[in-house]
């Protein structure tokens, strides 16, 4: 299999990326929490970030080498990019979007496009307008458009991230079919460990702009090397806790929580809590099914790509919540804001 190599350094605003990694497997997963720099790295590979310096080689093809003065422009890199937001062109129909992708491949792209339409089951959708599509359909069209451009590799940026669970289950088989039937090199970004294990031949774990591990997904994602980087597990909150009898636990830093199942008192456990599973409320809620309602203070609120990562000070254990930027706006989330964090017992999962 052909070699891929990334050695990139640079800053994007306050963010520093410093990555050096190589792999030969066909399907690589770039794995890490929100804010780890996955999308920034992907954009650098695409050639959209000229302030990143270093080397980029994708599937045996050199695209960038600052030392040699090589910088292949975006339009000549031949990569099939499927952005996190499908970015379907709203002035074109589904067919128009697919043809838009096919142009680079020319006449050779026709069989490719037909194959992509078949594998992704888009035949029925061709004459639709893109604003009539569901979230899952939009992603399939974006993927087909990338495939129709005869790319030398496909770059997918969290293709399942914004989909709800049933929709994920419907889109995932298509991704696996593309992976298995088209045989293209793939770079797949995700913050979901299950997805990483399912899709990837190799996983590159990114945290705070650096590669912290690289290897077979099954071995690496739960290894001791990665576990301390709690955020890299896609479980942004990892809590060391001890059972207090019944369903009550207390974390090592003194945060008292209710978990879904009764545990023998004194048992030690490690709980994972995903940032998007913490609800934030401006005012105390009345009677509510969620078992954990904490009065917290916002320590900081970082906005990025339509989302907001909210660091919470609970007085004991710090927590990270993720909400949409619009929600952060509506709740006026800023340092010092006094709010309530609502956590379902079911969201606290033993690791």
């Amino acid at each position, binding site marked *: 299999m052909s070699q891929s190599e990334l050695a990139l350094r640079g800053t994007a605003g306050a963010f520093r990326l410093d990555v050096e990694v190589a792999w030969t497997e066909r399907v690589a997963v770039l794995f890490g929490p929100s804010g780890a720099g996955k999308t920034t790295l992907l954009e650098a590979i695409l050639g959209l970030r000229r302030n990143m310096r270093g080397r980029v080689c994708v599937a045996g093809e050199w695209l960038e080498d600052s030392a040699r003065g090589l910088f292949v422009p975006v339009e000549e890199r031949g990569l099939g990019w499927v952005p996190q937001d*499908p970015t379907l062109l709203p002035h074109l129909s589904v067919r128009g979007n697919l043809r838009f*992708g096919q142009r680079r491949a020319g006449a050779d792209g026709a069989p490719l496009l037909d194959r992509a339409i078949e594998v992704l089951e888009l035949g029925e959708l061709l004459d639709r307008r893109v604003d009539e599509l569901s979230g899952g359909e939009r992603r399939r069209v974006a993927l087909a458009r990338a495939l129709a451009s005869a790319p030398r590799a496909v770059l997918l940026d969290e293709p399942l991230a914004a989909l709800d669970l049933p929709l994920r289950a419907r889109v995932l088989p298509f991704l696996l079919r593309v992976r298995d039937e088209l045989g293209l090199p793939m770079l797949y970004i995700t913050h979901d460990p299950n997805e990483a294990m399912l899709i990837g031949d190799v996983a590159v774990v990114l945290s705070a702009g650096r590669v912290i591990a690289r290897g077979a997904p099954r071995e690496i994602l739960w290894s001791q090397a990665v576990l301390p980087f709690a955020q890299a597990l896609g479980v942004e909150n990892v809590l060391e806790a001890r059972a207090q009898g019944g369903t009550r636990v207390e974390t090592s830093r003194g945060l008292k929580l209710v978990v879904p199942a009764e545990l023998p008192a004194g048992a030690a456990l490690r709980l994972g809590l995903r940032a998007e599973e913490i609800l934030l409320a401006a005012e105390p809620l009345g009677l509510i099914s969620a078992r954990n309602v904490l009065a917290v203070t916002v320590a900081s609120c970082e906005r990025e790509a339509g989302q907001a990562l909210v660091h919470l000070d609970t007085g004991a254990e710090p927590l990270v919540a993720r909400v949409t930027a619009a929600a952060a706006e509506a709740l006026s989330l800023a340092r010092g804001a006094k709010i309530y964090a609502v956590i379902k017992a079911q969201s606290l999962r033993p690791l």
Partner: protein
Amino acid sequence: MTGADVLAMTTLTLRVGVVAIALAFLPALGLGFWLARREFRGKAFVGALIALPMLLPPVAVGLGLLLLCGRRGPLHPLFQALGVELPFTWWAASVAAGLVGFPFFARACEQAFSEVEPRFEQLARSLGYTRGATFLRVTLPLARRGVLYGAVLAFTRGLGEFGATAVVAGIQPGRTETLALGIWSRIEQGDDAGALALCAASFSLALAATTLAEGWLRRAPRARGTPRP
């Protein structure tokens, strides 16, 4: 004044307006795109410069044009080389109309382009489209409503242009006398009926242009460049 006179003046006004928009089109598009996509020092100053023809008394704009492009003006040889005799011809009326309409046009273009999410352009580039092809196939189609809106605004502003045109083109019946100039001459001559007839022609022209554009804007699917999940 006969019906043929009204028709001739209306045709001349239309021709002046269309040529004015054609002259302003590329500069407005280019400047609008540049302002929408680039951050630089002195951007506010450039913005103010563009707004000038809108803010100055049109007569002053006309005088400026005359000084620049008149027989002794620095730009006169350029127009001569192009084979265009500018001062006191309908060309001058077009340039004047284009210039006073330009701020509206360029602003509308800037606004329209800044509403197109750069993500769409990046995506097109990644699929092999050059900057130019991306502009033509993605940016412009997505911004077309705003661009058209700006063109109509500038066109209708140009139709009513009086002060700058009077100075740089003169009021010459049959040659440079557009509807706006014609109305003024009729009032001067005490021909109220003639002035009113020309007013009606002006009104119809502006209404027709705006109705056509509105109709097109309403028919064209709304293609605002905001991505959605």
